[in-house]
């Protein structure tokens, strides 16, 4: 394992940890989702980039790249839907 | 020691089944109970230094595939039985108006 891969992997782990701490620290729902979504996007990019460099230019790297695209599409959509649901139902108190 | 943690999980599942009166939580307790049994099977199938049981030319030690097959089918059967239990819960709610075991009036 080369130096670059290790640095990328550690950076990815640290950013994911920061996002999780933010999810627990913030008081407001919207700032919590903001912390999680922004940091999540960056940490997945770093971790998968490190794995792609580790594997070189093979079929496995292409699969990892497809996983990255899929995670970007579904993750951002999930956060969007959560926020929409919060804006719609926050006054009605659906979950007590 | 791993087995002791696993058995703690087993007993927590049994505890939920025995004590809770809400039927949905009982079903979730049953799921936890089943999961602990699955983990026990997979734990004893691990072989040190082994790889997943897909035959390749440059490997000679593989983990034991037989428990994997048994648990693979057991997981899918467990979701089928869980859905049957949930259907029965909806029927009980329809008939008695509650899903708390203590409040069901059979009379």
């Amino acid at each position, binding site marked *: 394992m080369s130096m670059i891969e290790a640095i990328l992997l550690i950076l990815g782990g640290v950013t994911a940890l920061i996002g999780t701490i933010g999810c627990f620290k913030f008081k407001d729902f919207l700032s919590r989702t903001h912390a999680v979504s922004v940091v999540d996007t960056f940490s997945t990019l770093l971790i998968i980039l490190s794995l792609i460099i580790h594997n070189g230019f093979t079929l496995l790297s292409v699969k990892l790249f497809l996983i990255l695209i899929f995670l970007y599409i579904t993750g951002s959509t999930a956060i969007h839907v959560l926020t929409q649901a919060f804006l719609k139902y926050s006054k009605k108190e659906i979950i007590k | 020691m791993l087995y002791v943690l696993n058995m703690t999980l087993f007993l927590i599942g049994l505890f939920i089944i025995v004590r809770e009166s809400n039927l949905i939580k009982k079903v979730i307790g049953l799921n936890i109970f089943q999961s602990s049994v699955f983990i026990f099977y997979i734990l004893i199938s691990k072989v040190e230094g082994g790889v997943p049981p897909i035959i390749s030319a440059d490997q000679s030690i593989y983990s034991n595939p037989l428990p994997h097959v048994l648990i693979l089918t057991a997981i899918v059967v467990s979701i089928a039985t869980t859905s*049957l239990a949930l259907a029965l819960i909806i029927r009980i709610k329809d008939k008695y108006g509650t899903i708390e075991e203590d409040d069901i009036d059979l009379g």
Partner: protein
Amino acid sequence: MTIALLYILLSVLIVISIYVIISRNLFSVIISTTIFSMVCALIFLLLDAIDVSLTEAAVGAGISTILFLSTIRYVDIIATDTKKSAVPIVILFFLLLISISILIYDLPEPGKANVVNNSQATKYYINNSTTEMGVPNVVTSVLAGYRGFDTLGEVIVIFIAGISVLGILRNTKGRT
């Protein structure tokens, strides 16, 4: 390293199941069950069972959550507290845990259980799967080939469960 990770993950499972005992809100109980299934999938992956891990991730986190959430549309979302006392059950279970722990010391350490792998059937499956069937994945060849009769029974169980759900819910109004 793997063993240390397994300890952490099993402790996470125990914490989640204690949360299931404490919480009264069925919605959060169901979401924590989803997390439980994902951690289970991670444990299976660490223990070399990749097929089982894939199944648990698809079934436990996908279909199971949808079915539970479909069910709590029809029932109250808050569970009432039980009147049963927990003390005798907890004492009984502690005794049971101690006795099981004593018995467990006879089992081999995880990973060193050559006892299981030495069985004749497993050896036969691993040695002959590629030459007899041309299938490198031993789990598939055992599932559909060597133990095909077993799998037939499992498929029929799933089929009957589907029919039974249909039969039960056909006469139900489903009042919310």
